[in-house]
């Protein structure tokens, strides 16, 4: 079985300078609780970088410190060579931000809202063009509160793009959206990378991280516990497949670990998660084992390992506990 140190290994090999965005030792404390604890990472230009973790992991706070909305208690972030603590306005001129829930002035129409945000920057894109880019051209006279969830997220994205930013921050861009709206947003985000924009996003959807991100940092308890490409993280599990099943009390974890091809096992009560390098052989061995011992085997699932498995392996908890 692979160790946590091995899984998290990429952390130590992460380059410390030369990126488009560099977080350096960010710390944020609230009333004796450390929400973000010494977070560092580097993001290259035209890369989509994901912060993956459960609610309360410190993803949003990390993002807001890099965006200049919150002041870190220690550390700083450097974007395109500009220090966010010392050159906040300069940083904010080249960044675009989509907050987790973007509230806007209810009195303004979409067009007026974009015109207002455009006026805050020395250089800005044409508001009508932006609205049509996010497929809201028919809504230019509507007010934000009249939009659906997906439309509102796209409006937030259009506003984030109004200054044609070099770096784009997206905080839970597809939270609570229907599958179609999520797809639509993913397409837009991938297109933006092609235009050379650097994108940092947070998510608690593994599929989103796997689908969109060039690299993923897994956060838990205010710290980055692993950082690599999604494939790299999963690869380090050393498993071809994950077998998820229930075996009653008489089964033994050590015996299961001895079965053919098993690279790791995790047990919670009667539930077993078995990582295997040879899926077919292990499956046959597991079935024979239950047959020979007369142990009932139920709820059997076999799937390719995901970031969920990585998270589980690292923390012993599931990502979507809620």
């Amino acid at each position, binding site marked *: 079985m692979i160790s946590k140190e091995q899984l998290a290994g990429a952390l130590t090999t992460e380059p410390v300078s030369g990126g488009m965005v560099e977080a350096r030792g960010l710390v944020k404390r609230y009333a004796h609780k450390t929400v973000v604890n010494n977070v560092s990472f580097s993001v290259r230009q035209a890369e989509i970088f994901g912060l993956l973790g459960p609610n309360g992991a410190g993803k949003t706070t990390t993002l807001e410190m890099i965006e200049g909305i919150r002041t870190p208690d220690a550390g700083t972030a450097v974007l395109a060579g500009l220090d966010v603590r010392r050159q906040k306005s300069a940083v*904010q001129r080249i960044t675009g*931000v989509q*907050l987790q829930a973007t509230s*806007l002035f209810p*009195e*303004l129409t979409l067009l*007026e809202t974009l015109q207002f*945000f455009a006026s*805050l920057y020395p250089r800005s894109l044409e508001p009508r063009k932006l609205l049509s880019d996010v497929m809201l051209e028919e809504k230019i006279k509507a007010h934000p509160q009249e939009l659906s969830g997906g439309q509102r997220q796209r409006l937030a994205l259009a506003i984030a793009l109004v200054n044609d930013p070099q770096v784009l921050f997206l905080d839970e861009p597809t939270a609570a959206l229907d599958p179609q709206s999520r797809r639509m947003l993913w397409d837009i985000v991938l297109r933006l990378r092609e235009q050379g924009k650097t994108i940092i996003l947070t998510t608690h959807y593994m599929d989103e991280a796997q689908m969109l991100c060039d690299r993923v940092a897994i956060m838990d308890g205010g710290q980055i516990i692993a950082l690599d490409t999604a494939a790299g993280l999963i690869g380090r599990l050393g498993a071809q497949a994950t077998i998820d099943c229930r075996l009653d009390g008489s089964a033994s974890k050590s015996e299961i670990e001895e079965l053919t091809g098993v690279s790791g096992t995790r047990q919670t009560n009667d539930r077993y998660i078995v990582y295997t390098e040879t899926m077919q052989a292990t499956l046959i061995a597991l079935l024979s084992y239950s047959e020979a011992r007369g142990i009932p085997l139920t709820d059997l699932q076999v799937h390719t390992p995901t970031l969920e498995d990585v998270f589980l392996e690292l923390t012993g908890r599931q990502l979507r506990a809620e």
Partner: protein
Amino acid sequence: MRTRIMTLLRTNFIMLTRQRELILTSLGLAIVSMLVFGFLFSSNSASKTRLGVVDQDHTPVSAQLVSQLQKSDALQVFSGSSDEEQQALRDGQRDAVVVMPAGFSQQLVQGGARLQVYYDQSNPVTATSAQLTVKAIVDGINSKIMHQPGPVIVDQQAVAAKNLREIDFITPGMLGMLLMWANLAVGIQLVNWRETGITRRLAATPLKPISMISAQVVARLALSLLQGALLLALAIWLFNVHIYGNIGLLALVVTVGALTLLAIGFAIASFVKKSEAANSILLLISFPMMFLGGSYFDVNSAPSFIQPLVHAMPLYYLNEALRQVIYNGAGWSAIQTGMLVMIAWMVASMLVVWRAFKWL
């Protein structure tokens, strides 16, 4: 840069004009009240103010003052002893009595001259009318003494407007009330921006909080002046209300009043977290102030136990100053005390804002 500031101002102003509730509580309520009072009490008290003058000084100076008062078209002047005139006041024969004590002219030269004034407080309109008249006379005397010692001459213009109808009384009051509703509400606006996360979104842009707040202040001030002008235009057009004072001075009073109320609104926003709570606090402040601040009634004749409360209210001073300028044509000297009280409120509120206000 210039277009950026203009967009910021225009956006803030547009947002205000689209807040239906704001327009209704400020301009709407003021217009409706004005119409009701204007039409219901249209034939009220067209008579002159009856002023009893008691001259205990018996000098050429005091005699000259009496003759000045007699020249006023708005006054019907009676002379007599102190006892006679005060009895007449109690009997409802006089609206006010002015007593010039012995040594008055002497004090006038040396400084510290005092006039004793008695009002009939049973009728708010005549009492206010009498008060304003006498105050204007005293102002006239005061300004003469301050600037060029010599014979006392009453400023004719200041006392020329003596036909106070209900509408003349209510119009400045409604202007004051309009300013209160339009500007105190800035507190709710800010709490709402903060609560819904609009300020957080703005914090991710290069826009500085102070720029947005300044733009909001300028927009509210512009709205106040515009709404005030509309209200006065309507009063002039429908009820023939006359503005006797200097328009520039009136605009100054409106500006100081609006800024004071804005500062108090910001102070409220410094303490409250939820916009619902801000709304309740606003109502809790506005309603007593609307009635005790003298927008609808003459609060000078209110029971004495309530007077400390009345005199703590910035709206009271705003209404007083508006009446002095609009109705009485008063100059700065007549309103400076009230204006200073308002400015004191403004400064105190801004200190609170400076200590406690949070943008995020």
